[in-house]
């Protein structure tokens, strides 16, 4: 074994001598490059992970630890009280359940509809196709904030062709109900739906036409071809889109605040956590007190951790679905 190795290293110097020093030079270059790469990547990974690590260490500290300059990263008085308090403030159990139900159902609905639309754009020729696809691009481009004002009023005084006005004499107030958001999701106008349509269309375009024609020749109808032939093929891109839809819905603040204000969700309750901490303190102490910045931030970090915990678990299990399938499906212009 050692002899073989010895021979190999001898061989290396021999070869090096023969190549006039070129081999050694090249070897050194490779090693230096990989060391540089390691340092760079390590630094950047640390940069990304550091806030999370910081939050984890802060979330286990008591209030005195936060102000103790000697305590760095590792808490002196280890406590889980922050978690209990944050859970109580956010109404964690209920919020988690609500968020889970809403995110799941919305993601399923959005991806189903977007798949249909994306397939329609990719595989059919019809008049005005380019015009409608330009509209999809427009939907991606228009920030939802532009139309938020009007949507706000639209659902405040909701009416389908004046029917409700006719029957009940007044319009329906759909604010603080879940229905508008489901309606929007079912018609591709939810969070980043234009992007999903675009990605799914790009995927279906790359499937060879012969596959579809063979199915038609064998007597499959349009819908049957879509379900039997195309859908099983599209599993990777659908998984990524579904995961994105789920995660973005989970953390979304804008649509949740606008349409689901009445429902207790993790994202909205997290953004309110500092205020509810103030209210809680006031209730307990009986007087209006100002909470220290450090403590409210510790609670905020704890709450953030509790919210991203399910996402991190999901990410660990479905990491391949997030990264690999998206990059292997090849998004091209």
């Amino acid at each position: 074994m050692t002899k073989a190795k010895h021979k190999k290293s001898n061989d290396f110097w021999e070869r090096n001598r023969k190549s006039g020093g070129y081999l050694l030079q090249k070897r050194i270059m490779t090693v230096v490059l990989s060391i540089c790469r390691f340092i760079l990547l390590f630094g950047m990974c640390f940069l990304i992970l550091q806030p999370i690590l910081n939050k984890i260490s802060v979330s286990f500290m008591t209030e005195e630890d936060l102000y103790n300059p000697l305590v760095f990263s590792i808490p002196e008085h280890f406590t889980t009280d922050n978690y209990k308090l944050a859970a109580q403030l956010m109404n964690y159990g209920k919020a988690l359940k609500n968020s889970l139900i809403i995110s799941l159902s919305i993601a399923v609905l959005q991806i189903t509809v977007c798949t249909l639309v994306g397939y329609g754009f990719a595989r059919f020729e019809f008049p005005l196709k380019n015009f409608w696809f330009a509209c999809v691009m427009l939907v991606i481009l228009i920030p939802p904030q532009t139309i938020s004002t009007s949507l706000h009023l639209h659902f405040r005084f909701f009416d389908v062709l004046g029917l409700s006005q006719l029957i009940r004499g007044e319009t329906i107030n759909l604010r603080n109900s879940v229905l508008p958001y489901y309606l929007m999701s079912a018609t591709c106008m939810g969070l980043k739906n234009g992007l999903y349509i675009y990605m799914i269309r790009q995927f279906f375009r790359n499937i060879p036409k012969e596959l579809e024609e063979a199915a038609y020749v064998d007597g499959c109808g349009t819908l049957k071809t879509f379900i039997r032939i195309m859908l099983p093929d599209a599993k990777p891109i659908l998984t990524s889109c579904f995961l994105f839809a789920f995660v973005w819905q989970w953390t979304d603040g804008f649509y949740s605040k606008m349409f689901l204000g009445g429902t207790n969700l993790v994202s909205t309750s997290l953004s309110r956590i500092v205020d509810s901490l103030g209210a809680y303190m006031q209730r307990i102490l009986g007087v209006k007190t100002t909470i220290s910045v450090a403590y409210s931030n510790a609670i905020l970090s704890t709450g953030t951790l509790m919210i991203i915990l399910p996402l991190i678990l999901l990410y660990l299990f479905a990491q391949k679905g997030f990264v690999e399938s998206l990059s292997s499906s090849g998004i091209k212009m």
Partner: protein
Amino acid sequence: MKKQKNKLAGLQRRKAVSGYLFIMPFIIGFLAFMIKPLCQSLYMSFCDVQVESGSFTMVPIGITNYIQAFRVDPEFNRLLVEELTRMLYNTLAIMVFSFFVALILNQKFKGRALVRAIFFLPVILSSGVMLGLESNNSLISIIQASMEENASGVSITDAIQTILRTAGVGTRAFEKVFEIIDNIYDVAIASGIQIIIFLSGLQTISSSMYEAADIEGCTKWESLWKITFPMISSLFLVNWIYTIVDFCMRSDNEVIDKISTVMIEQINYGFSSAMSWIYFIIVIVFVAISSLIISRRVYYYD
């Protein structure tokens, strides 16, 4: 012959109909929840909207809202300019950073899967509400400020800045670069999707091209600019547009923040519509011009 042509037309018509059926949900949604609110909000921006219980009235008042946005409101102009410049140089930084990272991640080395997973983590962890909270996290900023105070001149960017200044190089040009480097965290967490898009592009370049270049005596540096860069240039366009749009919708965007404050707290629908239209039009024009410039330089292989 004639009959066959007819039949083909029939098949085409059937396909067209089923195509329309497939995209029907989108058309309905687009008309009901995009065009209608868009027109309404455009109309509203020229109106004084009063909301009473049960109904709302719109009184047309011309371009008063727009004048108010530009001439009366103390903050709006400043916020708009600030956000747009921030958008410009952040987008540039994100493009460079994500291209660079994608190049590194496309190489083969140990632990690549882990590094990829970490780089993609921000897509999940810094979306939606989390982003706004992150920038508001005053504890961290207080700690940072105190650290900077203690270590003034010790940080690398400060040192380089001092050196450059004493060497007589104009500082103004470098200020933005230093600002970006100091905010590298913001850039890193905003470029997850862009990295993935670049990676997917890099993987489609066939290795035979590099081999041919290598045999012809091309160095790695040359083949980067002569092969890699043109081959994925179309993705620069995609990423550029995506980054700008993403930036517009971020929850820590101050213009958006102002619009929603005016809308929800002050219940001034007309004024907030006017502001959002100004913002929207500026962004669209910006996207259109910049993508026109980029698309001229895009190289299509086939």
